[in-house]
């Protein structure tokens, strides 16, 4: 796990020594701030719930930008080869990169805590619901990052990685919405795979083990697949 820490540090440095982290955080805070203030004005309710519904959409677009570089760049420049021959396991490489991107994601959403101050200023927010929302936000970030990481692992082009990542996340967002109201195992499966229902429960203030297990198991599945993809390069 020391190697994971090293990889994590390297990636975090790469993020914060280049403009990408600051640009992504600034763009995210502009859009989330816009939706927060607009929804607060419309609903006149001291809650984050309605603005967070839009936050999921913004995150679907910005998270792949965080992850697009992670493995695609290594594949393109060929630095993946020395990394594979270094005394680190594939899992340590993948997990270190995952943790770094996840950390950036959490730093990116952290400024939204300012909104709680605003809510307390104009009303009496339900802090329990806000805590649940942030638990969901962190877990959802893990899933989004792992999807972006997987896309980055299968391509050499960062732009392609970002575009495919955005499309994949939007599909995940939409299939849950599109299948709501329909019965049968197929639609139930779609609803389960889609992120919308799981995220919505957290924003209401409910922590449901179904949603927690969904996010953790889906993230674990994707990290497992990424490790296998990286590992396969070793044998080619």
């Amino acid at each position, binding site marked *: 796990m020391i190697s994971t820490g090293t990889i994590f540090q390297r990636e975090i440095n790469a993020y*914060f*020594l280049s*403009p990408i*982290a*600051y640009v992504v*955080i*600034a*763009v995210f*805070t*502009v859009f*989330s*701030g*816009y939706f*927060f*203030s607009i929804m*607060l*004005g419309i*609903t*006149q*309710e*001291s*809650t984050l719930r309605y603005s967070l519904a839009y936050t999921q959409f913004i995150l679907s677009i910005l998270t792949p930008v965080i992850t697009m570089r992670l493995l695609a760049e290594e594949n393109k420049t060929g630095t993946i080869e020395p990394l594979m021959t270094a005394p680190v396991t594939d899992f340590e490489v993948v997990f270190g990169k995952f943790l770094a991107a996840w950390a950036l994601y959490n730093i990116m959403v952290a*400024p939204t805590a*300012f*909104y709680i101050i*605003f*809510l307390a*200023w*104009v*009303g*009496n*927010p*339900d*802090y*329990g*619901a806000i*805590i*649940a929302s942030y638990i969901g936000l962190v877990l959802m970030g893990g899933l989004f990052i792992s999807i972006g990481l997987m896309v980055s692992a299968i391509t050499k082009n960062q732009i392609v990685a970002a575009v495919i990542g955005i499309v994949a996340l939007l599909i995940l967002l939409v299939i849950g919405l599109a299948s709501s*109201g329909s*019965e*049968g195992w197929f639609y*139930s499966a779609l609803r*389960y795979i889609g992120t919308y229902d799981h995220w919505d429960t957290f924003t*209401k*203030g*409910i*922590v*449901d*083990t*179904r949603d927690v*297990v*969904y996010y953790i*198991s*889906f993230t674990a599945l994707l990290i*497992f*697949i990424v490790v*296998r*993809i990286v590992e*396969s390069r070793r044998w*080619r």
Partner: protein
Amino acid sequence: MEMSTLNTKKNDWFEQFGGYIILAGIIAVVAGFGISRIFNLWGLSSLIPVGIGGGVIIGFSAVMAVRKNWFSSEASRRKALVGTNVAIMSVFAACIFAVVGFLNNRHYERFDLTLTGKYSLSPKTKNILKNLDKPIVVTTLFNPGEMFYEQILDILKEYAYHTDKIKVESIDPLRNRTKVEELAKRLNISDLQLNTVVFECGEHSKHVQQSEVIEKQYPFKFKGEEAFTEAILNVTQEKQSAIYFVTGHGERQFEDFDRGGISGIANALKRDNCRVVPLDILTAKKIPDDCEVLVIAGPTKAYLTEELNIIRNYLENRGKLLLMLEPALSPNAPTGFKTLLPEYGIAVRDDVVVYNKVNMPLFGIQTVAEIYVGKDEYAEEHSITNDLKNYNTIIFGACPVDASPPNDQMPYQATVLMRAPEGSWGEIDVANLRQKKPEYNIDTDVQGPVSLAVAAQVKELPKAVTQSHPAMANDPSAKPQGARLVVFGDVNFVTNEYIENPGNADLFRNSVNWLAQKETQLGISAKPPDFRKATINPIQMKVIFWVSIAGIPVIPVIIGSIVWWKRRR
């Protein structure tokens, strides 16, 4: 030579379009599968694309493998094997994910972190849901833009979470007319109203309108749980419970919508799927056979002996009586129940309970004071009050109602439901209460703690049943089905004026449900919704808007610029 090779490559359509054709095959398979799920059957429209698409994928992949010599060399063979290995491992992991998801959907827990338990249903609703034995289909016919649409879906999801007997389906009536028509056909009605929630159970159905879910007065409170639980009771219970309210002795009227009337509590009973009926005992000459609970709400005039005998007969035949006395109005007017109730282990006095700790300057009559009963020490264990101990029940001007000491000869056992707090007493000088401030007189007044309400029912019958209840002798079914009584020393607590106090309505409803032996409907009713209003003036809105879209984003921009500047140097 080079030119001809290039031409050959250019003309090789397989090389040019092979990848796209395989992609088209994949799209055809996915489309076919999608069509089959949309129409919920495997017909030609779904089988053809799946078949053709599958054939194309397999065929073209095979040709491509041969042409590109995927398996000809050791290196390419290894590459193909590694790819296959990754694919198989990924599918295997996806299967584990699917199994985890399957189990996860069946065994789960929910934790409501909201401060007021906003999404937690009341214990009463949970109790009703736990005891459901028939499946219920709930269909929402709401335009998604409607007020409280989200809250309606949220709360219905909670219902479905607590029982697998409830299935919730949402239809957008403007977009899905076919489904609306199907529902109308199934319900055998010509037209369905928009913005309705339909509850179906077997042949019974109940339509809850949007107006029933929202309180009509501003600020439009959401009261979905009350309306939906009522609908569930309506469609699952075969018959309504008949609750008879006795009239003719100055009792409070359930058609009276004034502050002193009890129309609010009658509406609450109707929501619990009860039929509320007035009863003049002298005219009827008997208590109707379908009477599940007989309610006497604050009589101010005496009952005739004939009427008391009719009530006694009713009780002897396993009747259920809820009696609310009213001493403050006419303290010296005997109602006649003082002689009847001791037969059931209940003792009623004429004095008025005084609790002077609360100042009521506007009320004027200092003897009629608030009495809070929401504490453990003020009530004994009883299913009527067990869930209400965290709620204040406010009683105004009650008379003491006590349980007689246990007696082997008495088949009824009375339990005290509520007591006045420490410092209260029963004032015997009722006549002068309005003129002077009462003082506790140790010689004449009733010493506290004073009990305010009592519930009585048949206990384990002693071997020799008393002469006063010969009908119960050798009757093995007497114990669980005998008479039940609940007597309160006050009626004001259920009037429209005081019914909004947290524990008042539930105390009454629990008493009725306990008497009617509807044990599953005991508990606390739906609480008022927790709407956290934000009060924003225009300046605050401007500050929030600009700080959110410009103030906060500028921080990463500044930090990023500093980093960029330093690295540049």
